[in-house]
């Protein structure tokens, strides 16, 4: 009788038990939150995206509005290459270099022709997209994950643009160029492995 109770009790407990999850990254919401947070937890991504926005603000119209429209699309092409398993050499070095180059552009207040700026930003967008794209097949909900990381990246650009609007004032320009210098230095740190 005791054995019977033990068996029934054990079966009952087994039936009502649920899996313990370290992270509740399931379904649409889990996938979206994972995607949203992914770019925010990599400082190399964060500073490079903010640098894109800052540089766009320095370049003025139409670059300030063109970059946030074009960047996600180019990044998605890089991401598609990552998803397809197309190898891209030195992805991490490319991302680190993006912080260095874009930060330097802001620090120097460089104003190349629009096409040249678009090519520079586009090349780095491919590296950033490739890094995100390789994570996509492991996401709980790939569509929600990709929407999350595209929105997150876009919001980082808009943060950079918002900060860059301070370039209207002299003190603001100095502060933004100093910020660009700090981003470039961080890029050196990422490249050398110090950061």
């Amino acid at each position, binding site marked *: 009788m005791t054995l019977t109770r033990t068996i029934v009790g054990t079966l009952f407990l087994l039936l009502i038990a649920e899996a313990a999850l370290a992270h509740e990254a399931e379904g649409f919401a889990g996938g979206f939150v994972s995607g949203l947070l992914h770019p925010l937890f990599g400082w190399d991504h964060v500073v490079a995206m903010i640098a894109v926005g800052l540089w766009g603000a320095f370049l003025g119209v139409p670059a300030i509005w063109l970059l946030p*429209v074009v960047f996600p699309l180019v990044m998605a092409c890089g991401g598609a290459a990552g*998803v397809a398993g197309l190898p891209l050499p030195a992805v991490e070095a490319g991302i680190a270099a993006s912080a260095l180059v874009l930060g330097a552009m802001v620090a120097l207040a460089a104003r190349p022709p629009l096409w040249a700026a678009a090519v520079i930003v586009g090349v780095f967008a491919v590296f950033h997209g490739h890094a995100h794209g390789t994570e*996509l097949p492991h996401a709980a909900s790939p569509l929600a994950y*990709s929407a999350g990381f595209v929105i997150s990246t876009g919001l980082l650009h808009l943060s950079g643009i918002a900060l860059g609007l301070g370039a209207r004032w002299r003190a603001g320009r100095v502060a933004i160029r100093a910020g660009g210098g700090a981003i470039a230095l961080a890029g050196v740190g990422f490249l050398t492995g110090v950061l």
Partner: protein
Amino acid sequence: MIPKAALLFLAATLGVLPAAAHAHSPVEGMNEFYNGVLHPLLVPAHILLILATGLFIGQRGPRENRLALPAFFLAAAAGLALAGAGVAPDTVGGLLLAGTTAIGLLTAAGRRAPLPLYPAAGAFAGFFLGFDSTPEALDGRERILALVGTGVGLNLWLIYACGIADFFSKKPWQRVGLRILGSWVAASSILVLALTASSR
């Protein structure tokens, strides 16, 4: 020997615990109609296509392309009728994403597209959204209620997206905001389209 009472208890426990499997979990406590209304919001691919189509039509102004919304309505009705008839779609997912990418890119381009493209986009989105909304594990009156609810939901959410895009397309920075949203929608779809293609 296990006593009869213990076996009965075990059988009752096993009978109570299993739940029906659904492709999209219905919201508990709501009838089929309201679950149908919410259905488009529970499928990420549907949300993105509704958003892309709404932004695209609203960006141009619904008053300028009066055929776009009726085209969506009629096509959605046709798609839902086929879904209700049990024509089970297997390959619609890729088409939904491809359509979302194309419409998102047109929105991101921000230029006035040729007028016939607006009702064409509406008809495409309406038909495939309806076609991909087969109510599962429902029959008879409940199935019809779910389909009608989905039809109402699809049109309602599209009109909301369209109205918001129309309202926020007056100032230059608002139009840029719509283009940015269009590029985000297209970028998300491109990635998943690539994933779908690579997993085949």
